[in-house]
């Protein structure tokens, strides 16, 4: 019975190799995340980035289709992302169309929001899959160790030799031979092309944690390997995983934008930021705004994610503060 109590008292997400006193472990359990939250709030850049990030997500979720500012937008076609109106082709900035319109007279304020839904959804879905694969591969490799670890890491080294963009493009072609690329195809292709780093990071963390006293203690009192893994090792990788979300997200969003921009991404009329930018490319010499606005949206998202990742890293792991 004592064994169980001891294990329960071990913080679910104690900082790795913590130097804090062992006393009051149960209290520490909540206080790691509270401490991290407090440190995060002190980082002004990260907080601003987080607010902008949330506002952007809200804009993307709320604008398309049903949002209407009373008195300014008068009819449905003004804010329907797919409503075509050639009389409004490249209408320029106005209160009716705060982000102007594209060639077909589609309102970009609504379209960028709808494209953002797709871009952000692909971003989060692919990031989630990257982390799941990374955790499984990395924790097996790090936990088993020895020959298995060596082999798995060598395989990963070899995969690093594959060029990212061709690899992703070929995967989309395999998954959709007819050439119609769906959201899920994109998610899978981007995941397959970019899960390596996450796996490495998780493996590194698991190997460091494996040598900790509490893991040895758990093993010494007879905890099975799966219990050690599920109870002690994986919860402690939670911190780096939260950081990894915001490190992987920009890469995936940019990757999707690249593919859509060269015409190998999501199929029209579904919009993503990359495909709106591609639409804008036709006429950017005369109407640069159609290209620049989705690009600015991508840049803002990437910038925010970078700042949030920095802030989270400083907050969750103050020892490895990077300059």
């Amino acid at each position, binding site marked *: 019975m004592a064994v169980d109590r001891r294990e329960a008292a071990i913080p679910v997400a104690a900082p790795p190799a913590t130097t804090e006193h062992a006393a009051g472990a149960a209290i520490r359990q909540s206080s790691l995340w509270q401490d991290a939250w407090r440190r995060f709030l002190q980082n002004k850049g990260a907080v601003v980035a987080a607010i902008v990030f949330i506002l952007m997500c809200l804009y993307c979720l709320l604008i398309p289709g049903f949002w209407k500012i009373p008195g300014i937008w008068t009819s449905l076609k003004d804010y329907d992302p797919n409503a075509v109106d050639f009389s409004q082709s490249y209408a320029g900035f106005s209160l009716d169309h705060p982000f102007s319109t594209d060639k077909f007279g589609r309102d970009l304020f609504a379209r960028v929001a709808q494209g953002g839904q797709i871009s952000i959804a692909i971003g989060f879905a692919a990031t989630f899959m990257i982390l799941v694969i990374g955790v499984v591969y990395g924790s097996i490799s790090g936990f088993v160790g020895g020959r298995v670890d060596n082999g798995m890491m060598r395989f990963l080294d070899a995969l690093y030799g594959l*060029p990212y963009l*061709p690899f992703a493009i070929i995967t989309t072609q395999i998954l959709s031979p007819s050439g119609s690329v769906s959201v899920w195809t994109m998610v899978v292709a981007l995941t397959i092309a970019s899960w390596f780093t996450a796996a490495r990071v998780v493996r590194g963390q698991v190997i460091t944690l494996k040598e900790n006293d509490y893991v040895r203690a758990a093993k010494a009192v007879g905890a099975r390997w799966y219990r050690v893994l599920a109870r002690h090792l994986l919860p402690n990788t939670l911190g780096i995983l939260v950081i990894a979300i915001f490190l992987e997200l920009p890469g995936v969003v940019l990757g999707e934008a*690249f593919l859509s*921009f060269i*015409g*190998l991404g999501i199929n029209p009329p579904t919009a993503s930021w990359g495909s709106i930018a591609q639409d804008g490319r036709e006429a950017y*010499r005369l109407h640069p705004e159609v290209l620049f606005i989705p*690009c*600015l949206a991508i840049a803002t998202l990437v910038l925010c994610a970078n700042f949030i990742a920095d802030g989270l890293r400083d907050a969750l792991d103050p020892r490895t503060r990077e300059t």
Partner: protein
Amino acid sequence: MATFIIRRIIWTIPVILLVIFMTFVMMKQIGGNPFRKTERNVPPAIQANLERKFNLDKPWYQQYVYYVKDVATFDLGPSMSQRTRTVNDIIKDGFPKSLKLGLLAFLWAVILGIPLGVLAALKPNSIFDYFAMFFSTIGFALPSFFVATLLIYYVALKWGLVPTNGWPQGFLEFDDRVILPSFALGLFPMAYFARLVRGSMLETMQQDYVRTARAKGLTYRRVVGLHVLRNSLIPAVTATAPLLGLIITGTFIIEIIFSIPGIGRYFINSVFNRDFSVVMGITVLTSLIIIIANLFVDIMYGILDPRTRDVR
């Protein structure tokens, strides 16, 4: 040292085989048999002959062995959509242009990014430091196609300083058309270098041996030039390999935007034309470049920092 280098070189062979294998398997997944999907009705005898000529009647593992042999002898086969040309022709045509673009971009990154990082680290928290870090943050976040079109729109169209697109023919020919594409491609590695070098400089300056050197009475200049700079540039050397992957990815986009007839543009066109022998050839080629660059960086790293030799 020699053993380290030899071991490292031998290790790349299975990596190359594995990468070719993965590309091969992937192409088998999409490609199918190129002679079975034509509109023309090919008589079975001719079809069989064609298949025999390109070894398509053999089991996949033999095809793989043939392909590895072909790659080893630099013969990447015929193009499926451009009947008169081979993949070799296309690569011979496009690769020097892409290589030049990549090298110029890398040059921008080295000659602007590294000094930016060094200067920022010498005066941390100064106006210049903030400017450099702001610049590198921007360079990090802007997608390269945005940078490229922004540059075309303002520098080429509005101000008329340079042409909007095109690329000099010869490998050693340079004119004002190379400036914008290489800068647009080099911005990200530049930002990366600036950030990396600044961080590692700041860290090196905290080291004991730097304090010792100062305490011995060496001038600030000598300490920075001799001890700090050399040690803090090691991470920049290591970062070269992953950056190369990014530069290759970038060339694909930049070549499309600036209409540069490099391998990236051929690659994308070949994907649209479903010309998979070109797709495969270019993928294998870029993989080989990345693997060889990794090898080179590892060896350089082993020379610069002897502690890393024993790890492998």
